[in-house]
């Protein structure tokens, strides 16, 4: 077990006191496996990813068990966390323009983790950086290494960031909306690249996205989050084919289908997502869910284990997976 998360809870400070934005999140990830975390804004998916890297905002409190390679991430101090970041855990962010330092050349930024964690010399690290840039399929890697971020396109910058994240061959790669800011053709290429690279090096991938289609097609397993907690988890194929949770089903049906008759009514979920932490007990989806009953608002969510390593957290789902 490379990564194991159990009963993760995250509290953020607000003017009105601490607010629990993530609660009861549990999952595991083996080396070489891929897990997609999908959710809309306010679902807590980004906070979960940040918690793994120890990058939560000041004042945030984390509880629960977060274990990476036998290390307890919750107890780790900042100095030891820094040793992990970039070395054994790599992270890619959504906006390559803001995640890359505009004042440093790309080559230097890709080389930085190598100098820091592997003790390479500048020259050796630069040479390795050029090789990495070629590995992420960048055209003319020498030129890219010498360039500054503003001179590259969005897709090129994202590839550079991937090169940087992979430079020390991490065991775990966390990608937070890596392709949301990119054109759809580039997006497909980047996701394909990530899949190839992780297969080549037996690296585990945690992909966070709001796009269910992206997650389901590029990850072996999927975790659906809403209102700060997990609604459903399981193998992507199975969840896609036969979603157990009403929220997952609603998400699947809400997308306009290419080729559908024009103006066909989409089954939209009424209302808006409540901010995470708004429903202290009961199900955060209660009220918006078409299957809501009174018990949904007050009863803590059960975890129903279904066949095929699937879990659904819903009061209306029976142990055999059918709706009650």
């Amino acid at each position, binding site marked *: 077990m490379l990564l194991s998360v159990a009963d993760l809870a995250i509290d953020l400070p*607000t*003017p009105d006191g601490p607010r629990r934005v993530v609660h009861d999140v549990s999952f595991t990830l083996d080396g070489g496996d891929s897990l997609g975390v999908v959710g809309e804004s306010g679902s807590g998916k980004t906070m979960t990813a940040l918690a793994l890297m120890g990058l939560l905002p000041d004042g*945030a409190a984390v509880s629960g068990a977060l274990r990476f390679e036998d290390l307890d991430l919750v107890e780790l101090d900042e100095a030891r966390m820094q040793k992990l970041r970039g070395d054994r855990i790599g992270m890619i962010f959504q906006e390559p323009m803001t995640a890359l330092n505009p004042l440093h050349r790309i080559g230097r930024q890709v080389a930085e983790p190598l100098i820091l964690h592997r003790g390479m010399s500048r020259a050796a690290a630069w040479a390795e950086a050029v090789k990495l840039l070629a590995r992420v399929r960048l055209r003319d890697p020498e030129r890219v290494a010498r360039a500054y971020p503003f001179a590259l396109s969005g897709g090129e910058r994202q590839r550079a960031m991937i090169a940087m994240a992979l430079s020390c061959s991490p065991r775990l790669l966390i990608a937070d909306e890596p392709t949301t800011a990119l054109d759809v053709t580039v997006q497909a290429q980047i996701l394909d690249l990530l899949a190839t690279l992780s297969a080549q090096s037996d690296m585990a991938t945690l992909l966070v996205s709001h796009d269910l289609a992206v997650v389901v097609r590029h990850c072996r397993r999927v975790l659906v989050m809403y209102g700060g907690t997990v609604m459903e988890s399981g193998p992507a194929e199975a969840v896609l084919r036969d979603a157990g949770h009403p929220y997952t089903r609603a998400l699947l049906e809400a997308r306009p289908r290419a080729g559908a008759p024009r103006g066909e009514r989409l089954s939209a979920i009424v209302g808006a997502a409540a901010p995470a932490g708004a429903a202290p007990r009961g199900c955060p989806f209660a009220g918006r869910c078409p299957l809501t009953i009174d018990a949904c608002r007050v009863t803590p969510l059960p975890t129903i284990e279904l066949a095929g390593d699937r879990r659904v957290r819903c009061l209306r789902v029976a142990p055999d997976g059918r709706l009650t």
Partner: protein
Amino acid sequence: MSAAFPRPRRRGGLSLRFGAALVALLVGAAALSLVWTPFPPGAIDIAHKLAPPSAVHWLGADSLGRDVASEILAGARVSILVGVIAVGVGLVFGVALGLVAAAAKGVVEEAIMKLCDFTFAFPALLSAILFTATYGPGVVNAIVAIGVYNVPIFARLTRATANGALAREYVLAARAAGRGPVAIAFDHVLPNIAPPLIVQATIQFAVAILAEAALSYLGLGAQPPLASWGRMLSDAQDWMYVAPRLAVYPGLAVALSVLGLNLLGDGLRDALDPKLRGRS
């Protein structure tokens, strides 16, 4: 990982309250001096020269027997007058120039900015001294000298923030709705750039008070019998070893006024953020 929750700041909070209180004190002192002072300001009374604080002269008397408390109150008048007019001039002309620069762009913008740079190239206080030395000392000239320097400060700030506001989509939406450039400037740009301008205005007010004190200290600002904190500081110099308190009172008055204005500016910056409105 830490489990501590830092105290979140409420709207403006302490800065705003403290600053507002000090500024209120300043304004109150000036207003009060218009209707009443313990002694007529400027009234010379050699018999009581350098009197220590007593029931009659609450803060004592200066080298010419003038009542210090009355002089301080009356001095507030001058400080406020200079601050209001100098900053007012800076705001009116500076904001207008800045808006024109931001909207017109191109050569016009360049020209206005170069004019500002030109003004900045001259050290402010030295130029004020030069101006008043040339055209004669006095409150009016001091105001002009200080006010001139506020114009480019507000022009630059307005241009920078207006550029930001003009690039927002809601300005494009207003154009799509058929609004003209002047309507957009008043309806959309000004309200959105007002907070930094207001904060800068409080800062410039403080600067104006300091500048007036400096000019008066050099004998170039308010002339006797007009009371001015700067002049009081200058007079107090000669009596440093005999009655150091004569420097403390006006010095404290200047310091508290400047502090109050800066705190007010800080507090206003937070209080004026519409995203924090409705929560408190």
